[in-house]
């Protein structure tokens, strides 16, 4: 169960991906990818960006939260399995989710003026802050590299309450920002939110399934523009619409860690 990445044998620094390079840089060549769990081994198209494969690498030491557990309701489970099928047939990728974003970017370092006091091992990704199954955020993101879009299946637990019985607007905003963040990074190294706009339409009942549809609308001047529609599974109820702008930032390899 290994990930094989084959970079060119000789690669001077100047050939490293630059911020201006399109995401599908031919610099990375993906040979073969195997997943843990219930996905069959099958070679992925050679055009699949190296970024996506590296980001989505299963970590042996870190728990992957983007997997079903006992708290997932029937709606969440059935839609999850629908998309799992799509990962086998139409190029969708299930994005693993770890307790900290550091697990996604092993071997990279943040630009000096960004990383404050070094992150400690007990620091957690906000949307993975509530440990107990079913109490907080239950979600999984599926990403479609060829269309730069993603779907997030979200089942909110009782700890996310705002108005009694319904999801806190801020907690939904946080998950939308998080889905934007993963989509932006996988679509072209979008890293930091510069603008976030959300229009709330209807309340989400705690424990129900909400589906976030995220699209990259455009990439211009090192900024990525994304949109999100959050709705019920049958699309009859729109819960919220949001848009976000992310700054693209290239992460340097951290040679000191290797």
């Amino acid at each position, binding site marked *: 169960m290994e990930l094989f990445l084959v970079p060119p044998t000789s690669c001077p620094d100047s050939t490293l991906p630059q911020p201006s390079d399109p995401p599908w840089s031919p610099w990375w060549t993906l040979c073969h990818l195997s997943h843990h769990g219930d996905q069959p081994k099958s070679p992925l198209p050679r055009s699949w960006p190296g970024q996506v494969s590296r980001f989505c690498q299963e970590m042996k030491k870190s728990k992957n939260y983007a997997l079903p557990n006992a708290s997932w309701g029937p709606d969440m489970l059935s839609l999850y399995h629908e998309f799992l099928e799509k990962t086998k047939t139409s190029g969708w990728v299930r994005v693993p989710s770890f307790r900290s974003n550091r697990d996604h970017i092993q071997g990279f370092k943040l630009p000096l003026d960004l990383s404050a006091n070094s992150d400690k091992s007990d620091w957690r990704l906000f949307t993975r802050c509530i440990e107990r199954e079913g*109490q907080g955020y239950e979600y999984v993101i599926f990403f479609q590299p060829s269309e730069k879009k993603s779907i997030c299946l979200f089942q909110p637990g009782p700890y996310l309450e705002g108005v009694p019985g319904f999801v806190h607007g801020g907690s939904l905003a946080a998950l939308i920002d998080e889905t934007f963040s993963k989509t932006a990074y996988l679509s072209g190294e979008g890293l930091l939110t510069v603008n976030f706009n959300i229009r709330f339409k209807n309340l989400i009942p705690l424990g129900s399934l909400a589906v976030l549809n995220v699209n990259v609308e455009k990439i211009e001047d090192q900024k990525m523009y994304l949109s999100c529609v959050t709705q019920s599974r049958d699309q009859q109820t729109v819960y919220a619409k949001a848009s976000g702008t992310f700054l693209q930032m290239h992460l340097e390899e951290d040679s000191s860690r290797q």
Partner: protein
Amino acid sequence: MLRSCTAGLRSIWALRGRREGAPRLSMDLQPARRLFSTEKVIHKDWALPNPSWSKDLKLLFDQFMKKCEDGSWERLPSYKRRSTQESEDFKTYFLDPKLVEEERLSQAQLFTRGFEDGLGFEYVIFKNNDEKRTVCLFQGGPYLQGVPGLLHGGAMATMIDIALGSCTGGAVMTANLNINFKRPVPLCSVVVINSQLDKLEGRKLFLSCNVRSVDEKTLYSEATGLFIKLDPEKSST
């Protein structure tokens, strides 16, 4: 947007039946019913210093408490759960028994007060009633991380939602939020959110805020928001 928002609420109210009087959503609540907590926990006001508060946060808290002495400012208390009466009211308004299990609902608690001391949102809000503005002192803990070492944008958005909401009175709901992030906030640092009511048009409240460092030298973000006053009397169909 406003039409769709209140139309949504109207339809919910129509389904549930009219009720007299809008329940209050203010922060100074009666202790909540809870199945397995001691009384001490129920009565606890979370907007007070605890050992996880940094020196910066405690200093600012003391400065604002001094301002409260002459009555021009007041500290808003903050509880984990809503009153029994308010929960019952909302259940009648909004709750479809098919959608939410009763058991799960009884475990519900206000999102930002669901963390152990220091791990999540540590905040206190001071209100200046004359000037219709509030100051929120916020320390984001290690469970609010986004990019490693930095506060998650969504956690900042949550606090901005709360800070803007604190400038309103009575039962309101957030309709829109627009946030411009200028600089990332280091995790576990203290920020000051200054919010104010800019304009009131009928049931529409237009608010804005800025997020600054303790020394006011760094502007982290600016935001605007639109909140809607809930009024079941007017929304009957």
